[in-house]
């Protein structure tokens, strides 16, 4: 399958297979006025298969959120059909308003103006804690957090 090369834009590579659509939607590419392609189940030597997003435009991305969604992602910046920069994602030390704390007793559940903020406490376990109530979450597949507090 061929997708045209990009003149100026982004290639979001090494997305965990199956998670591309969530990122595609989060970036608002489904309603974008420029060309964007979501390629799913691309063969990958590292992971067997992966998803790729190609965007024919330079857009602003919050890399901390993208890193939380999938820290294995690599974003290639393309200018004049050449990769000018590769940006490898990593788990951000802090994420804000990506998801809501699920603890019903957390102050953020009632005081809606408070930004839902989570701080990285363990990089190897991808473990985050709610800044207010300390509830723990693991950044799960595609950035869907898994509540680990018992």
């Amino acid at each position, binding site marked *: 399958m061929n997708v045209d090369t990009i003149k100026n834009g982004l290639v979001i590579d090494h997305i965990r297979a199956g998670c591309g659509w969530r990122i595609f939607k989060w970036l608002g590419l489904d309603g974008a006025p420029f060309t964007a392609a979501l390629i799913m189940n691309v063969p990958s030597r590292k992971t067997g298969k992966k998803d790729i997003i190609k965007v024919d435009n330079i857009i602003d991305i919050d890399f901390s959120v993208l890193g939380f969604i999938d820290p294995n992602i690599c974003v290639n910046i393309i200018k004049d059909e050449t990769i000018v920069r590769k940006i490898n994602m990593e788990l951000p030390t802090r994420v804000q308003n990506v998801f809501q704390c699920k*603890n019903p007793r*957390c102050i953020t559940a009632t005081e809606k103006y*408070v930004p839902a903020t989570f701080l990285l406490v363990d990089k190897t376990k991808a473990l985050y*804690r709610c800044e*207010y*109530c300390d509830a*723990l979450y693991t950044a799960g597949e595609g950035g869907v957090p898994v509540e680990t507090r018992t």
Partner: protein
Amino acid sequence: MLKGRHLIEPDDLSVEEINEICSLAEQMIVDPVAFQDVCRGKILATLFFEPSTRTRLSFEAAMLHLGGSVEGFADAQSTSTSKGETLSDTIRVVSSYVDLIAMRTPKEGAALLASEYSACPVINAGDGGHFHPTQTLTDLVTIRQLQGGFEGHTIGFCGDLKFGRTVHSLVQAMCRYKGNKFIFISPPELTMPEYILENVLLPAGITYETATRLEDVIDKLDILYMTRVQKERFFNEQDYIRLKDSYILDKSRMKLARKDMIVLHPLPRVNEISPDVDDDPRAAYFKQVKYGMYARMALISKITGCL
């Protein structure tokens, strides 16, 4: 320097600051009259968004014994919160009237949020099942008075370890001293939260045991910290009824304990300590109440900058 600082969780105080507060509390226990005017002209607001007779009265008595004044509320229903006012607005308003706020809410993280909007220091007097640092100071003053120090103890925590904020706070505090060991005694439904095990015990390299029967481990303990199964923390009353009498400390179980063990309890108790234990010299929970007031007196006088 504690002047002007918030106290949201036990870790907000360094080991040196805890020692400083405990030493001052001990001086106040010996000669309370010497401190009766140190906070004259200062006002404490007690903002209690959920009922608590004991902690509120302890804070108020502490401020009054220091010569200061007190205002506040004991029930969220009588405040603008019931009209839909945000916590941040309530705190902005109250903190413009007073020198210090002591605040209790059922919401975890509420005291931290309040501190972000307050013009005066905020003391967390309990936020849901989260932290209760002044109960921890109370427990520490009691342990230092009755067991001579904070190091080398085997401490058993018994009862509701899941929602028991006093337990979480004391564990966090005692992790900072050398040679302490913990035994967590609870039904499977009320075990210590993962975040305490992951965030507090693991980084401190503290080992712990778990048990489901108090009588299996009571002979190992220097300190037994009993807790109440709190009805207000359950969404399902059936679960509460099933678990509320999981542990009852009585004379027969006290016979299995060491002669120098002390029994602490944050109070109020329901059934978890039988009244026949009250006369046992190892029952320290009523002394603990009095030490709590002195701990709060010491804290208030430091945070307001009066001492």
